[in-house]
């Protein structure tokens, strides 16, 4: 979340609650509802490391609100983040370990494991389809996020199919 917050602050200074709302609006229903406390903690850490600067703004009749702006070092950090490519996702190694070790242990049947896992993935796929249908059609970012999750799941399902073909 650190870099997401820094990247939002490249636009203009903002306070914690605004940043939470901006993230939610941008990423939509597929985004794990951020805990506002977590955001404040992260902002505190970013300030300590000199990537942002806080300033208290007085509000009439309400507690002060702390607004943050990006420092030059913060801007560098965001640039470096965009510069780096992200790591590719990893194979579902826990399931694969089960599959690899089932025959060794004699405690589970690999095909039964595959069938059970497929049921879970198909149900998740169904949930994702519903999420996509319920989500705002015009929120492209959110729709793409859900579609990405579905395509990953599709690949996992294809891989299960390959495992079943080889092991049956």
């Amino acid at each position, binding site marked *: 979340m650190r870099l997401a917050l820094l990247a939002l602050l490249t636009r203009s200074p903002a306070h914690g609650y605004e940043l939470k709302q901006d993230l939610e609006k941008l990423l939509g229903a597929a985004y*794990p*509802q951020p805990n506002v406390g977590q955001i404040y903690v*992260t902002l505190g850490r970013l300030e300590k490391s000199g990537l942002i600067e806080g300033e208290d703004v007085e509000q009439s009749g309400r507690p002060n609100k702390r607004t943050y702006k990006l420092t030059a070092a913060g801007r560098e950090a965001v640039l470096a983040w965009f510069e780096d490519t992200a790591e590719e996702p990893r194979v579902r190694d826990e399931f694969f370990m089960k599959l690899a070790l089932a025959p060794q242990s004699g405690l589970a049947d690999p095909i039964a494991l595959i*069938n059970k896992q497929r049921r879970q993935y*198909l*149900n998740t796929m169904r*949930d*994702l389809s519903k999420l996509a249908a319920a989500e705002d059609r015009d929120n492209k970012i959110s729709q793409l*996020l859900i579609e990405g999750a579905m395509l990953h799941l599709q690949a996992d399902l294809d891989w299960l199919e390959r495992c079943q073909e080889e092991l*049956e």
Partner: protein
Amino acid sequence: MSDDATAAPVVPIVRAEGLTKTHHGEGTPVPAVRGVDLSVQPGEFVAVTGPSGAGKSTLLHLIGGLQRPDDGKLWLDGERVDAYREARWAVLRRRSIGVVFQFFNLVSNLTVADNVELPALLAGASPKAARDSRAELLAELGLEGRERSMPGELSGGEQQRVALARALVNHPALLLADEPAGSLDSKGTREVLRLLTRFHQRGQTIIMVTHDARMASAADRVISFFDGRIADDAQLGGGRPGPAGGVSGVLELKE
């Protein structure tokens, strides 16, 4: 389904026992469907998935009488049909089974309207009734104004919608779909899926063959087909607690 607890049990719309089919092409015979037992209840939306060559399309063709089994028994709506000859199958398909294929199979030198009306006329509908059903379905499928187009003038997604209208014009009890989005782009796929889901919600029984897990997950039952056999038969939805907080949380942010 009946609300009356004393009513007779619901007759499955499809029931198969030991259904078997071997392809005899060049070279060694290839078993495509190997002793399949299956029962589908009225109103179900069943997806059959599996790798290509697993025999899932053959299974669908056996159910629709497009191919004949070498062995096994098949009942449609309680009636034993595996020994039917082509003429009786033709009547059955006209009245009770709609089929959509991957490549639409529209009659290329007939207009959209004629493609949809033809099966209604063949089933004995009056020209007016055929026209009315056609108009209603095309409107429903978002194809108004396309009546006079030739299939070749339409996009793949539109052609598949015409094929869907043709399959449904006689209100068949059973709709069979063989990779209905197999030759469509993702927009066309979503459209076909949305329409199938809509007809299913109105009670249409559907059996769909697909290799696409996203399509399959729209069904309420998924049969995994491997090497001519049912490897798994899973009911989706209902009764699953689901992950905490639903599926939102698709995105994992570090820290």
